């Protein structure tokens, strides 16, 4: 089983997101960076699948040279290979990103054979374009379903089938994708493991294959980031002890929910 996971390096936000003076990026000076949450779960899922079925996980990212950190993190939790498509760190639009990733995957497949499964995050935590995985899968002719929170690989059915669950209100939908396939996964598909000491050591030795991309910009470009206007709420304090319960139930009655 050959699995490819695409991940994105994003700022790790706390209670507030600040913007740099030029308005073109999140000010991450006090935040640090992480793997976008859906994709962190994507790597975990890919590693679990190879633990059950054998095979290898390749992690691919497009971003600044520092995005190598996210590839090393993936290696520390079990991924086998890392590929970086390096940019100057500016925000790439979704079309350009998709073309660059598609080219990179074509190159990897030409060298080492096709991937059985491509794993994307449903959407990135920061720019949230909701499209890169779908564009790449379409360009490569792979079936893709988004919103996936459960994967079961049946390697014995024909050329292989991916049974994928998508959460809906009060239950889930089931899809059966013929392999080679692609999925857009969501956080909650698993609980990602923490790196072990051995994993950390292995990640230091990870050889990262670097690639450049000549993908042209698409139609959308970033002008400026800004925080939404905040509505100031006057919070009414109902009390400082369990005796406030009476006032709480008054509120609930007023709203007609009791």
């Amino acid at each position: 089983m050959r699995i490819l996971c695409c991940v994105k390096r994003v700022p790790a936000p706390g209670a507030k997101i600040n913007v740099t003076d030029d308005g073109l990026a999140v000010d991450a000076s006090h935040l640090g960076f992480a793997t976008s949450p859906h994709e962190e779960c994507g790597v975990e899922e890919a590693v679990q699948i190879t633990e059950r079925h054998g095979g290898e996980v390749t992690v691919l990212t497009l971003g600044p040279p520092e995005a190598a950190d996210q590839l090393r993190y993936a290696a520390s939790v079990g991924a086998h290979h890392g590929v970086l498509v390096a940019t100057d760190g500016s925000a790439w639009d979704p079309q350009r990103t998709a073309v660059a990733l598609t080219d990179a995957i074509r190159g990897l497949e030409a060298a080492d054979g096709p991937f059985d499964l491509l794993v994307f995050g449903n959407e990135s935590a920061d720019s949230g374009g909701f499209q890169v995985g779908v564009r790449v899968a379409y360009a490569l002719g792979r079936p893709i379903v988004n919103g996936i929170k459960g994967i079961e690989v049946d390697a014995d059915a024909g050329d292989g089938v991916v049974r994928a669950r998508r959460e809906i209100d009060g239950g889930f939908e089931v899809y059966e994708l013929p392999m080679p396939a692609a999925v857009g996964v969501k956080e909650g598909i698993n609980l990602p493991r923490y790196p072990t000491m051995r994993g950390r050591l292995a990640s230091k030795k990870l050889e990262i294959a670097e690639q450049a991309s000549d993908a042209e910009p698409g139609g959308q470009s970033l002008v400026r980031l800004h925080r939404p206007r905040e509505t100031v709420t006057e919070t009414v304090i109902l009390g400082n002890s369990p005796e406030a319960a009476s006032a709480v139930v008054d509120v609930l009655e007023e709203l007609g929910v009791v």
Partner: protein
Amino acid sequence: MLLVVLEHDRGAMDEAAREALTFGRGLAAQMGLPLHAALIGANDAELVAEAGAFGAETVYTAVHEVLSDFGPEAWGEAAAEMIRQLNPRAVLAGGSERGNEIMAQVAARLDLPMVANCLEIDPNGGAGEWTITRQQWGGSLLEDASLVSERPLLTSGLHTLAAEQTDAPAVPVAQAVEVDLDPSLARTVVKDRVVLEAGVTLSTAPVVIGGGRGVGSPEAFAPLEELAAMLGGRVGCSRAVTNNGWRPHSDQVGQTGTRITPEIYIASGISGAIQHWVGAKASKHILAINIDPEANMVVKADWAVIADLHEVIPAITQEIKRRRA
């Protein structure tokens, strides 16, 4: 024309589609374009009439055997084919999970830019250079973007506007569009559905009792469950709780979980990190229970009780029992 792709689940229109029609009505008026709708995999009169009530003049319908149930590739190709035939000036869908997915499929197939979760769209006179304000970080941050496209594909930010019917509803014309779809598109059509719980769910519950790190353990959610059951509501939780394995991820409220819209959200022991607030902010009212008066959740709440949730929640339950007795 401005074309709105309607999201529905086996004939039941999604709120996101109503929001997209409402949003599209404003944009179409601004551009002097008629508002039309695309209905995929259905042609029933009720859906057509509902689209009309929200301002659609013509409802184009596409029916085909691979559209018997939802499938992102089949729906995407059907929408793309309708767009090829109808040549709309712009295309809009609701910014729900399915709405964004269908539009991404359309974008891939037509090789056009797509801008997700828009709040404001300015056609700048209609020369093909658009100025858009859209959501990043689930709405915690906004992006002003410029878009160069002869045919923008857009989705409207989920629950960022209230769906409203038009004052001057017309009886819409239903018009069938022939779409020739490859049977292989059935490879991503829903195969089966599993219902885990009937009745109210986290996203539809009128009351949500939220618990955060402050709850302390999986067992300590029992009083929250009791109160939620009493009010016909549901228990929700923060990301810290699911990361600790105390609750299933399906209970998570937030950017990577569920967006809730209850009449009241009782957030207990939740600090209110950005990731959580994004999922909670569409609540009509918020009551925070927290020992920290400075907590983000307390500051943003309509009401707050500054005390230990482990004492306050059972006291609320007792008080309701007492009044009901």
